[in-house]
Each structure stands twice: as structure tokens, then as C-alpha cells.
């Protein structure tokens, strides 16, 4: 049997402002029929570039060498994609291999109905009447599980949910029944419960249609769930290739071992033992807290938080978990005074936030630190790192200029394990993990008694995340501040928090110590959330999949 695609010694370079960059450095891979090959790696490892090279979808600034031999469903001998003319390449795309992208809302054309977009892929490979195209679109939507397809094909992308959009993208990839589907981080933009459904759908493609799949992902849980074989990429090279069980059981390469060790696991953190609630006073206390966003032109007000009660003790880390739109970020913003409280009571460090005046609250701000989700946008691009870290010191009168504050800034950079010379650099000259350390330094500048962290590691690679989380744990023990740790990732929360509150649709549905919430969840949603989270172990994951299916029925 021959391979569906065979990559031989692929080299890809990009021209950039800083000169030529080697993105893929001699990669050789092969995918057999009905096989799911996962390419795993962190950002910049070259996994996406490798996958896109299969369809010749590289930008003009790229130059390639090597061979990518793609075999069509019917032809027995393959063609080298890299040597095709643009016209021939167009023939191959969609027919022999098709792609599923990361961000479903970005890959659907907002101004055309769904059926038209599905039909475009078909029309590119042969004449087709309007009626046939529509019939085919209905068929495809039905296949990927969109209810009421005859009616829905006339809808526009914005009328579908995120998970449905990803199903539509998969339907488009399937339209010509290509032998190979390339899925580039297909579930990264989705909530964990939706992710489980999309992974099931991809599994069905292989089982029912015999498609081979190249799965690009950074998530080891997703790999364990779906892959047959795994290739681990690091700095443009494949460092290890192995069947999935073997890779997880006995990783050979040092990088693979580090990567697997860095993956946070539910049950590996504070949930291992019962941690009693500390007897200290509350730094934050919410009673029937309601937060409503004001009505805007053309839409009514939106209630993000609907009457929640919770508290954080001094020195305690509370984990706040929920999917997108659950209201968890809104609560964090309200504690920092970024979003006004509209009902109930929220007491922060002795200040009632309902109706608080910014002028009075400003003095308290020095006692609250905040770490934002995206380290890329949380620094003024025109200020140096030292100036950014010095800002709270200047604002609260501890220093007159950034130069005065330099001694303290160096101390802080040291505390977050960054060389002090980084103070002279600009934010864009640092990596994501380094910037998030600087975020910690800035948040801790005034030794606050409360820190709010809004998904501080969700934009980071696994190994970087592991180091940042570890650093946060150390800092918290050292300085003893209380923290609200907001995350969608139960495993991450288990590592740092001692108590967890689970949010859904603006309500806290369950709260308690880690061992209780993660060990014996009371609420059905918490159970589903836990079961949807793929674990980095193929056998355990297969069991969990069945358990999730049982939950659903």
C-alpha cells in the first residue's frame, strides 16, 4: 500500500525584515491510508508550515526545497506538489487534499450564504448546476450534523455558533471527498465541550469515509484522543516519530519528554489532598453580584453575571473556571474596577464596588495587581520594559521617574527570573513567556495583597506555561498575596488554586475545594466539563470518551 502523502527532506525558508528565516529544516514524513498523523510542536516549530506545504499554501515570501508527493484518491502514483504549476496546484487543492483551519469564523466568507461557499469548492473542479450544488450542500451539512440543513444552507456564517461553523468548514473540506484532510489546530478556538464533539466528527471522517488526516496541534490531550501516529517537531525538525501509545508511554527524545512532563494534568495539583479553607479574613466578598453591560444602539443590555456569591480569603488562591461567555472575565474586571457593578454587593479590600467612585478607589489600586491574558498587548509598545514595570511606582508616588525606580525594577525583574538588562528592551523584543513574567513584575511592584490573573497562560506554549505557572506558585508562596485565577483549563487551575468556582451562563454553579470539585463534582455541567477535557494518555482518553458518551445519553 502506498502513502497518501509523503514528504521528503522538506526545507522552507521565509524572507523577513531580519533576513531569511529557516522555518522547516529537512522534514520527512509519510501518512498512510486511513491514518491519523498528529504533528505536535510549539509555536515556531514549523508544524503549520509543513502542513500548508502539502497544499502549496505558502506565502510568496517562502522558498521551498525537497518533495511533497501527494497521491490522489484514484491515482496510484502521486505528484510532487512543490513542482506543480499554479494551474495544476489548483486542481490538486480540494480534490486530493483539503484543509480545516483553526479559526472557523475567519475562514467563512461573511457575505455569502453557506451553500454558495460549499459550491465554490465543487465548481472549482467541474461544472455544476445551481440545483445540484444546493443539493450537495444539503447533503454535506447533514453529514457533519447541522440540523435542518435544507433551511440552513441559505444562512450566512454569522448565524451559526462557533462549533457549527467548524462543522461547516469540515463539510467544505469533505465536499470532494479528498483522500487527505489537513486539520490545522481545528479545536484550539473552541470550548472544551465543543472540542470533544469536533474531535468525534473528525474520527468519523476516518472511520466512515476512509480519509487520512494530518492533525496539527499543540494539545497533547487532542493527540491522545485522535492520533494513530505522532511526529514531534522542534525548531523546524522532526525530533521523534512514533505510534501514539509508544510515544506517550516511552518518549525517546529529550524534548518530547520535557513536553509531556510540562502538560498540566487534572488531579496532579492541589486536588490530591483536602486543603482546608484558610481562617483568614476575606479580601474579596461578593453577595448576589450582578453585572450588566449597558444597552447599546440596536441591542438590549446584556447581563454577564447573574447574582453570584463567592469570597477570597487573604493569602488564598481561588480558581474561577468556565467556558467562553460564562462571565468569569467580567468578575475579574469588576474586582479591578474596570467594569462597573450594577447590582448586589462586591467588597474588595473593604471597598464596596457597587457605586464606587474612581477617585476614592484609586488609592486602593496600589494594593491590587492585574495580569492580562495576552502578553502581546498588555504593554505600551513605545515604552521600555523598565518603564512599564516602573509605572505603578511612579503613579503611586514611590518614584518620580523611571530612572529613580530602576533599583526596585531590577529587584522585580530578578524576582521573576529575568535578567535586569531586559529592562532596556522594548516589549516586542521579548517572547510571550518573558512578557508574561514582566506582567507579574508589574503586578507585584507595589507588593499588593490581591492579584487578579485573567487566563495568564492561555496564549503561551505548554512548556512556557509550565514555567510561568511554577514561577507564579513560587511568587505566591513568597509574597503571600491572595489571588483570583481565571482560566478555562481545569488542569491549570488545579495546579495553582486551592478552591475552585465553576461558572456557566453568568452563574456560579459549583464551588468548593479542588478535591471536591474535581474529585466528586456535584453538578452535571462540571462532570461534563471534566469528561470533555482530553488527557494526555491514549488509553485513559479512550475510556473517558466512552464515559462522556454515557454522560451525553
Amino acid at each position, binding site marked *: 500500500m502506498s502513502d497518501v502523502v509523503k514528504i521528503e527532506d522538506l*526545507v522552507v*525558508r*521565509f*524572507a*523577513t*525584515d531580519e*533576513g*531569511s528565516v529557516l522555518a522547516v529544516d529537512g522534514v520527512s514524513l509519510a501518512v498512510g491510508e486511513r491514518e491519523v498523523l498528529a504533528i505536535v510542536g510549539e509555536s515556531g516549530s514549523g508544524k503549520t508550515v509543513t502542513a500548508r506545504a502539502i497544499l502549496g499554501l505558502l506565502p*510568496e*515570501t*517562502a*522558498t521551498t*526545497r525537497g518533495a511533497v508527493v501527494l497521491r490522489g484518491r484514484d491515482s496510484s502514483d502521486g505528484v510532487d506538489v512543490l513542482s506543480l504549476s499554479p494551474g495544476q496546484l489548483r486542481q490538486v487543492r480540494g480534490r486530493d487534499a483539503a484543509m480545516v483551519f483553526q479559526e472557523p469564523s475567519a475562514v467563512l466568507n461573511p457575505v455569502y450564504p453557506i451553500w454558495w461557499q460549499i459550491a465554490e469548492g465543487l465548481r472549482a473542479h467541474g461544472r455544476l448546476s445551481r440545483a445540484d450544488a444546493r443539493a450537495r450542500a444539503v447533503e454535506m451539512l447533514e453529514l457533519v450534523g447541522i440540523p435542518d440543513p435544507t433551511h440552513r444552507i441559505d444562512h450566512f456564517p454569522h448565524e451559526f455558533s462557533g462549533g457549527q461553523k467548524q462543522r461547516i468548514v469540515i463539510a467544505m473540506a469533505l465536499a470532494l471527498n479528498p483522500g487527505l484532510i489537513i486539520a490545522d489546530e481545528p479545536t484550539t478556538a473552541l470550548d472544551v465541550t465543543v472540542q470533544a464533539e469536533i474531535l468525534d466528527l473528525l474520527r468519523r471522517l476516518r472511520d466512515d469515509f476512509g480519509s487520512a488526516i494530518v492533525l496539527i496541534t499543540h494539545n497533547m490531550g487532542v493527540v491522545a484522543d485522535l492520533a494513530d501516529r505522532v511526529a514531534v517537531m522542534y525548531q523546524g525538525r522532526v525530533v521523534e516519530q512514533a505510534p501514539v501509545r509508544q510515544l506517550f508511554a516511552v518518549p525517546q527524545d529529550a524534548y518530547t519528554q520535557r513536553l509531556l512532563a510540562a502538560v498540566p494534568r487534572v488531579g496532579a495539583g492541589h486536588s490530591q489532598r483536602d486543603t482546608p479553607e484558610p481562617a483568614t479574613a476575606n479580601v474579596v466578598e461578593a453577595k448576589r453580584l450582578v453585572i450588566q453591560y449597558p444597552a447599546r444602539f440596536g441591542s438590549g443590555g446584556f447581563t454577564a453575571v447573574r447574582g453570584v456569591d463567592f469570597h477570597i480569603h487573604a493569602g488564598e488562591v481561588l480558581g474561577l473556571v468556565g467556558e467562553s461567555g460564562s462571565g468569569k472575565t467580567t468578575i475579574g474586571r469588576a474586582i*479591578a*474596577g*474596570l467594569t462597573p457593578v450594577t447590582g448586589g454587593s462586591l467588597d474588595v479590600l473593604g471597598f464596596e464596588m457597587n457605586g464606587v467612585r474612581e477617585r476614592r478607589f*484609586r*488609592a486602593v*489600586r*496600589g494594593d*491590587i495587581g*492585574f495580569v*492580562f*491574558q*495576552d502578553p502581546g*498587548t*498588555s*504593554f*505600551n*509598545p*513605545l*515604552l521600555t520594559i523598565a518603564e512599564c514595570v516602573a*509605572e*505603578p511606582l511612579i*503613579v*503611586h508616588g514611590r518614584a518620580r521617574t523611571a530612572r529613580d525606580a530602576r533599583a526596585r525594577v531590577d529587584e522585580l525583574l530578578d524576582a521573576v*527570573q529575568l*535578567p535586569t*538588562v*531586559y529592562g*532596556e*528592551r522594548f516589549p516586542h*523584543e521579548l517572547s510571550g513567556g518573558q512578557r508574561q513574567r514582566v506582567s507579574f513584575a*508589574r503586578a507585584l511592584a507595589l507588593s499588593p495583597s490581591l492579584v487578579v490573573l485573567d487566563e495568564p497562560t492561555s496564549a503561551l506554549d505548554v512548556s512556557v506555561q509550565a514555567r510561568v505557572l511554577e514561577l507564579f506558585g513560587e511568587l505566591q508562596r513568597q509574597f503571600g498575596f491572595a489571588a483570583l485565577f481565571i482560566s478555562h483549563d481545569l488542569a491549570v487551575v488545579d495546579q495553582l488554586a486551592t478552591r475552585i468556582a465553576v461558572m456557566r451562563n453568568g452563574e456560579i454553579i459549583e464551588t468548593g475545594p479542588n478535591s471536591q470539585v474535581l474529585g466528586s463534582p456535584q453538578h452535571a455541567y462540571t462532570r461534563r466539563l471534566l469528561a470533555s477535557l482530553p488527557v494526555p494518555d491514549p488509553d485513559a482518553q479512550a475510556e473517558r470518551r466512552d464515559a462522556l458518551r454515557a454522560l451525553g445519553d
Partner: protein
Amino acid sequence: MTAVPAKPRGTWLAKVPVLRELRQSVGVQRFMLLVGVIITLVYILVALLAPVIAPYRFNQLQDASGTFPGSAAPSATHLWGTTIAGYDVLSRTLYASQTALMAIVAAVIISLIIGVLLGLFSGYFGGPLDRILVVVCDAIYAFPSLLLAIVISIMLSRGQSSLWSGIMAAALSISVVYVPQYFRVVRSEVVRIKAEAYVESAKVIGAGNGRVLFVHVLRNSVRTLPLIITLNAVDAFETLAGLGFLGLGIEPSSAAEWGYDLQKAVSDVTAGIWWTALFPGLAIVLLALGISLLGEGLNDLADPRLRRRSAEANEAALELEA
């Protein structure tokens, strides 16, 4: 911990705005930007050196050898011919670059300062005043600028202009049209930046509005302005010319101005006299082209989507490796 080498900062040349972009650019984009820069520089030089370069004064009607002939075709004594009134076309065309430059500088300074400040405060603080300003600016933005210029020119000069009232009429009327443009662009940038994490983190720290506005928001919100400044500059001197063409411009004895000369050339054209129209007209077109190329070039480089990188560098690197 790995050692961190001192970062090379590059020479000061790399930091001069337009030069920096020229160094970054490649291929077609570099060529267009370069042409724009050269044309613009040539006009600035001509404006500064007009008294030295021009054979006669802009309002000179005779010299030692007698009164200039009217409507004379290009010749050795009058390289670009003379107008019906006997002015030397070459001299007036060269001198008019001074007038154009003054109109550009005045218009850009006035509209830039007012527009940016209004946009900054309005976008940052929001509220009813912001909403009113948005409606007012949208209304003015949608209105033909020449009509406003006519009205303002009537207000300022009641129809006849000296050098300064003519220039100020053009500058002010262009400002009335361009303040809304700067306002819209800066305001929308401010509204976007206001929600950026670095502004929110400054607020969380407790920074006051003044600090947030001037340290964090202002400098980050003016990055898209070069293109509008160049559009503003082109419209400034073309409006001056448009007013001149409608007879609302500067008297020929107080300054040279391309639009006025073109108005006088309308009847010449019907008589087949081409030189009085062609040269001032070409002067306008060339300056407009130069400034526009400069603006588009800077805009291309500021927008990563439009930016080009060389693919040749790539090929070379691959060859070296092999």
C-alpha cells in the same frame, strides 16, 4: 541564565522617519516612495530658491530692454512664454511653489493640532459631547470641500485676496474639512486603543486620565496619520488653486498662484495658446503626484498587509546552504 548581548541600536539615520521607511522598502514600493520623496524635496528647494532660480520677479512686467510682450510663445528670453498680461510664465510658475508651500504648512498645522486633540479627548472620554462631535464631523466630512472653501473665502476676504488672506482662506477652509478627517481617524484609533490591555493595565494601576492619555494613548494613536497628512497637503494647495480658478484667489501683483494663472488661461486655450495653461497645470499635477506617492509609500510600509519583503534574499540563502 544565558547572557544577553547588548542590542545593536543602529545608526541615527535609521531613525529619521522617512529615511527609515526608505531603508525598509524593496522593489516597486521603494521606487514609488523614492520618486515621491525626490519630487517633494525638489519643490521645497524650488520654493526656497525661487528668487535665485527664476529669471524675473513673479510680478515683473518689464526689464531693461522694455515691456514684456503679451501672450508671447516660448522663446530664449521667455523660456515658457508670457501671459496675456505680459507676466513671464516660468517665473510665476516657480514662485507659485512658495505660495503653495505656505498654504500646505498653514493648513496641515491648523487641522492636525485641532483634529488630533479633539479626536483624542472625544474618543477617550466619550459621553454626549463625543456623540455630538461625531455627528458634526460626519456632516462636514460628507460635504464638498470646495463649497465650504468658497464660503470661508467669502467670509475672510469678501471676494478679493491679498497673499495672506488668500492663503489663510485656503488653509482655514481646508482645515474645516480636514479637522473632521483627523478627528475620525484619531478617534477610532483611540476607541480601539482604549480597550487594549496596556491602557487597561495603566488604569488598573491607578494612573490618572492625563497620564493614560498622553503617555499611553496619544503616541500610539497617531501612527496612521502620514497618509492623511499627505492628502491634507495635496488638498490644501489644490483648494487654493481651485479658489484662484474661481476668481476668489490672490491678486497677481501680491503673489504668484497656479490657479489664478489657469483661470486666465481658459480663454487662451480657446485661442490655441497652450503654454499659459500647460506649465502651471503640470506644476500642480507633479507636486500632487509627489506628495501622494510619498503618502502611499509610507502607508504601504505602515500596514503589514501591504508591505512587501524580498523573496530574492531567500533564494540566495538557499543557494548558500546547498
